[in-house]
């Protein structure tokens, strides 16, 4: 049996260390991993737990991230709990196997410590790795701080391994800002955490020799479509389980999570939508602006996949201007989240003025002051009754203002 780890009610952990502890407490059977900045400490800390007897499972340090996810797939198909961590280029190298993991319906938990994609090479945080994997068929949960990185990991095992779901889950946290910033954290004791996560239930496992299984079969035009549709359906329907698990987690810890987190949206006139640590910056700005009389609110998809299409419009309420912020180079289009949020709002018939900011690429700082400026800009759109700037703009960029698409007024 693994050694018990003495934990205080409040610990000072960074996001990486919090995630490593969550993996330890879930008593993961196999971690197959390859280090990369800024996710490396998750793997290193896990290695430390292994070396000191706090873990009974196997720790396989492979020769690349592609192999890390391949090892996870082989291990998960052999019927046990599996997790790993990566960032950026490592995530990019994994992408082929991400699709295979979800296609085989293997509930692997992957910590993605978000970092920019090269070129130019950059180790700092943005969401381009998250966006790269968004169609890979995984559940994507987003943590905005270190406490949430811990909490989301525990929830991720419960959600992914649920017999109605059986899908892999990514837990995202911002590189450095969350992963390397120590904060007060209230972890669960080992027994309580394990009890919450539960005993792993093998499904179609390769080590049950009474019932041989074939994993990774080929399907062409006769069956491929049906398989992918079922997989999508399982992902879309996982919302029920996600809500249940979040409710159980609240009952246990008092910490409440929703698939879309809204902050002061009940009467908001203007709203900004973002992911990651930016959410906390925006909340601070909104709180301060409320004192100045601006009815500002913040919307944050906790669950990036399955995308909470139905809840977005609901949360938007009667906001007159909504700005969607994408922390990923859009590559010749509007920001991806802008497109998704716009579509969700459009489907309800509401017509707020929706604009897009690209921001924070390669770890460029996003300040409370800049957040306030953006809120005020939304107020200007709302007051004018039309978009007063270009629809896509860039926040915090050096040089002349960059923007695209004018709002055409009839």
């Amino acid at each position, binding site marked *: 049996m693994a050694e018990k780890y003495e934990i205080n009610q409040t610990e000072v952990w960074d996001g990486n260390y919090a995630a490593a502890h969550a993996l330890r407490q879930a008593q993961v*059977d*196999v971690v*197959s991993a390859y280090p990369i900045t800024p996710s490396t400490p998750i793997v290193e800390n896990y290695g430390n737990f292994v070396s000191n007897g706090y873990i*009974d*499972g*196997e720790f*396989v*340090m*492979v*020769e*690349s991230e*592609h*192999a890390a996810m*391949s*090892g*996870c*797939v*082989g*291990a*998960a*198909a*052999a*019927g*046990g709990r*599996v997790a790993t961590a990566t960032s950026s280029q490592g995530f990019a190298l994994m992408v*082929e*196997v991400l699709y*295979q993991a979800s296609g085989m319906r293997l509930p692997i938990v992957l910590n993605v410590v978000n970092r920019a994609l090269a070129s130019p090479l950059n180790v700092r945080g943005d969401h381009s790795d998250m966006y790269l994997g968004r169609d890979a068929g995984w559940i994507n949960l987003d943590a905005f701080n270190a406490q949430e990185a811990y909490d989301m990991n525990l929830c991720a095992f419960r959600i992914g391994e649920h017999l109605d779901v059986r899908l892999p889950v990514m837990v995202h946290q911002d590189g450095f800002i969350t992963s390397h910033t120590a904060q007060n954290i209230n972890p669960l004791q080992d027994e309580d955490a394990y009890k919450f996560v539960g005993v*792993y239930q*093998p499904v179609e*496992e*390769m*080590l*049950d*020799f*009474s019932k*041989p*299984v*074939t*994993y*990774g*079969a*080929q*399907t*062409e035009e006769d*069956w491929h479509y049906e*398989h992918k549709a079922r997989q999508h359906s399982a992902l879309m329907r996982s919302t029920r389980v996600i809500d249940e698990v979040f409710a159980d987690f609240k009952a246990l810890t008092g910490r409440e999570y929703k698939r879309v987190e809204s902050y002061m949206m009940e009467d908001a006139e203007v709203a900004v939508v973002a992911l990651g640590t930016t959410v906390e910056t925006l909340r601070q700005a909104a709180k301060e602006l409320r004192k100045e009389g601006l009815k500002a609110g913040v919307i944050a998809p906790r669950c990036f996949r399955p995308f909470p299409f139905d809840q977005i419009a609901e949360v938007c309420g009667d906001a007159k201007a909504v700005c969607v912020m994408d922390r990923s180079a859009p590559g010749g289009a509007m920001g991806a989240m802008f497109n998704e949020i716009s579509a969700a709002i459009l489907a309800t018939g509401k017509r707020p003025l929706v604009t897009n900011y690209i921001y924070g690429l390669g770890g460029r700082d996003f300040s409370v002051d800049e957040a306030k400026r953006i809120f005020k800009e939304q107020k200007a759109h709302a007051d004018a009754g039309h978009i007063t700037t270009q629809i896509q703009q860039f926040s915090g960029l050096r040089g002349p203002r960059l923007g695209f698409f004018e709002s055409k007024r009839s």
Partner: protein
Amino acid sequence: MAITSVKNLKEFSTSNERFEGAHLLCPGCAHSMIVRELMNCTDDNLVIATNTGCLEVSTAVYPYTSWDTSWIHIGFENAATAASGAEAMYKARKRKGTLKDPDASVKFVAFGGDGSTYDIGFQWLSGAVERGHDFTYICLDNENYANTGGQRSSSTPIGATTSTAQAGRVSYGKKEKKKDMVAIMAAHGAPYVAQLAPNKWKIMAQGFQKALETKGPCFINTVSACTTEWKFDPKDTIHLTDLATDSLMFPVYEIINGHELNILYRPKTIVPVEEYLNAQGRYKHLFKPENKHVIEEIKKGITETWEMLQRREEARV
């Protein structure tokens, strides 16, 4: 089934039906013979990982499977890693007591063609062997990317024509020599490495058994004659493999612990390599006068390799 008690090939080939005859491999393909032998030479439970390639696309087309055992395919390059992951999970679950049948004996095996072994999956194989997982990797070496229509691989011998290294008016086909994968895997310090051939089925089955019984990562390169891309009559697979081993194009040997080399088959009469080359369409162009030097080069290579193997066997290094 213990190979020493086997009377004949017929008895052996039907001893343990875990690979169905119903599959989509070409008539005359040696892959199925090699796979069947591996699965027949042990009564242990098997977890088999297979790289993308002819074997994989021909044996697991939904809703059918030819595998009456645990089987997984992920991608082109990572069967060795899939086996690593499964083996790690087996160890973890055995320790924790969560296996359904903790007393069941199990062996982990990975199959790959030469494309996935010599080229695209080389790193994954190297990593898995370095980490020391207890598994056996078997390369079904047909010396080309047969599944995608016969392109060159780094296992394709010099002078063979392939769709991406074609013999033509100014080319004699592939210019480079075949990569020595057996030496590379022996250099990893793998406890058992061998090159085997299905025409020498008893030697091959014994080699498979040694690998399965050896703790740690083992690598076996098997010659798998490809009727489609080598261009010969499907009924001649074993005859052609006889020519391969008897001309010493494919010497049959093992290397134990990276240094102890044993030649496992010595032809009584060495067949001139021209007989082997002339039996296949892929070497036909070498018999034109302007390509004679290529045959000479092949012959020189065979002599050098055979000399090296014999010296190493003698010297025990």
